[in-house]
């Protein structure tokens, strides 16, 4: 048995993660040693930390750099995803303060936890070894379990945390077993080595260890991206978790799941894609259909958006099934636009929310269009984008994903996707019908927008429209990011 050779340490490859870890740890200490009930300043400091990390991430754009004996890589693919994670963390932090004060669970640990979760996502995107991907995933998941149950006094939040924990740990077991079997069949946990092994031994495709391993890995990641039939946790956790955390979970971790999923499937098993695209085809159809059909009958707006987020994972899976550069670029673009439009929608929900989330139903939006016209228009932009109506980012993203599927010959899949998208218009427009065509049943508890929520809304609306009208530059970046 060999001994372990200490690899050359190249910290530059993980510089963004290092910076963010330091910021998060310092903030934990600041939270302990600075007295006072107002924790908003921690959010401000986190935003600065995220900005510095983003600058460090983007500056690495260009040729891929391997580090730590080839277990992490800083390539354009990882950088694009990291920018998505940093943006969703920043937007979630912007909408957190008001909600947490209102719900009286204004603990300072919220911000470091969001930052640690972000570090986990970043490791998932740049990990090229199953070990690193697993560690990133767990760092993310453990932080999210705590965040989902963050409002300790609320039974709903407790339930969300407990459910997410039990099911998340369960799915981790499957993912790990898949990794163990893949390791046994190929002799390595490094994606590069697995790739060369599979390329050199095509017979491995019929090795039961390998096939079961690959399927179990797919199950583990499907759970994380909330693909049907592994989506059962999503509605309960999204409904019960504090709203800013729901917004964060629906954008960042979903993108991180896709990043790791794509990294493992497209990078490690590219020559087997005839096999696993069949599995993805079924997953995509199930996910879109289940998400949209159940969303039709939801009254609670957070629950509706939870099912809608399942459906959106399905659209992204369509691009994944296509398994070409356009499909992968489409997923990148879609995840970016989804982060803006979905967190924006949740920001509006927070803004009109009452203590204890007492008005979380679609009916509670009645008359918003007359009482708060500007807010209603902003919300409409997000709903149009989620439904995929031009000129918004959601339309471009879906168009790109479905055309990638057609390019690869999956015409049927694209048609199912478009039909699903049409069905989804019903439940998004239903909210707008309430906003503009019904009289308000009760007064809105209007506390006014804090500057941070206003900035978040402005950024989200701006990005949703800009990505919808002039997507060229960002699409070009996404295409460069997937040139493996």
């Amino acid at each position, binding site marked *: *048995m*060999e*001994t*372990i050779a200490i690899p050359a340490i190249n910290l530059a490859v993980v510089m963004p993660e290092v910076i963010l870890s330091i910021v998060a740890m310092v903030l934990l200490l600041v939270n302990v040693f600075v007295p006072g009930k107002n924790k908003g300043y921690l959010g401000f400091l986190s935003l600065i930390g995220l900005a510095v990390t983003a600058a460090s991430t983007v500056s690495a754009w260009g040729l891929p750099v391997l580090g730590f004996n080839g277990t992490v890589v800083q390539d354009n693919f990882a950088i694009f995803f990291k920018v998505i994670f940093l943006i969703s963390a920043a937007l979630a932090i912007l909408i957190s303060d008001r909600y947490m004060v209102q719900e009286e669970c204004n603990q300072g640990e919220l911000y470091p936890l969001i930052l640690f979760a972000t570090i986990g996502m970043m490791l998932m995107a740049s990990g090229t070894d*199953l*070990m690193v991907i*697993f*560690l990133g995933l*767990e760092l993310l998941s*453990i932080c999210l*379990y*705590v965040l989902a*149950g963050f409002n*300790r*006094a609320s*039974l*709903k939040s*407790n*339930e*969300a*945390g*407990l*459910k997410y*924990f*039990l099911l998340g*740990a*369960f799915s*981790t*077991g499957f993912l*790990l*077993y898949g*990794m*163990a*079997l893949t*390791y*046994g069949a190929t*002799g*390595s*946990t490094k994606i590069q080595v697995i790739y060369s092994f599979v390329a050199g031994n095509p017979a491995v495709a019929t090795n039961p260890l390998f096939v079961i391993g690959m399927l179990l890995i797919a199950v583990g990641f499907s759970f994380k991206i909330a693909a049907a039939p592994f989506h059962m946790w999503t*509605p*309960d956790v999204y*409904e*019960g978790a504090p709203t800013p955390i729901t917004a964060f979970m629906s954008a960042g971790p979903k993108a991180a799941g896709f990043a790791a999923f794509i990294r493992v499937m497209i990078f490690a098993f590219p020559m087997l894609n005839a096999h696993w695209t069949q599995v993805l085809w079924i997953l995509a159809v199930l996910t879109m259909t289940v998400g949209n059909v*159940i969303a039709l009958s939801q009254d609670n707006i957070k*629950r509706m958006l939870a099912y809608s987020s399942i459906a959106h994972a399905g659209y992204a899976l369509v691009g994944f099934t296509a398994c070409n550069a356009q499909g992968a670029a489409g997923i990148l673009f879609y995840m970016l636009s989804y982060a803006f439009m979905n967190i924006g929608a949740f920001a509006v929900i927070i803004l009109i929310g009452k203590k204890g989330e007492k008005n979380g139903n679609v009916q509670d939006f009645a008359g918003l269009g007359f009482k708060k016209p500007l807010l209603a228009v902003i919300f409409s932009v997000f709903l149009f984008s989620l439904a995929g109506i031009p000129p918004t980012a959601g339309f471009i993203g879906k168009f790109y994903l479905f055309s990638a599927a057609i390019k690869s010959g999956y015409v049927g899949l694209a048609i199912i996707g478009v039909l699903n998208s049409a069905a989804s218009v019903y439940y998004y427009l239903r909210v707008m019908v309430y906003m503009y065509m019904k009289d308000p049943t009760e007064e809105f508890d209007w506390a006014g927008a804090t500057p941070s929520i206003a900035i978040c809304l402005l950024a989200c609306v701006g990005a949703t429209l800009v990505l919808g009208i002039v997507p060229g530059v960002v699409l070009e970046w996404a295409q460069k990011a997937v040139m493996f």
Partner: protein
Amino acid sequence: MLALNNYLIVSAILFAIGTVGVLTRRNAIVIFMCVEMMLNAVNLTFIAFSKYLGNIDGQVFVFFVMTVAAAEAAVGLALMIAFYKNRESIDVEDVNLMKL
């Protein structure tokens, strides 16, 4: 010296027992113990392969799995305590505020 297959069969059985336990048990702590059993089945698989392949990666992986499992236990038990304080129960049948 037992063959690789024996270890793999034992770990597959352990994993299956853990899975069935998660699906059938009602007490959250017992469910969590079943999850831990699944993770340890995975550890056994890793070590068996590591020995068989003469490759140390699998054993390193096991260390990480154990560390993560410990962190997960800390967080999970804390969540259960928070739930118990509000609900005075740790039965998953009582985790039912939100339904389809």
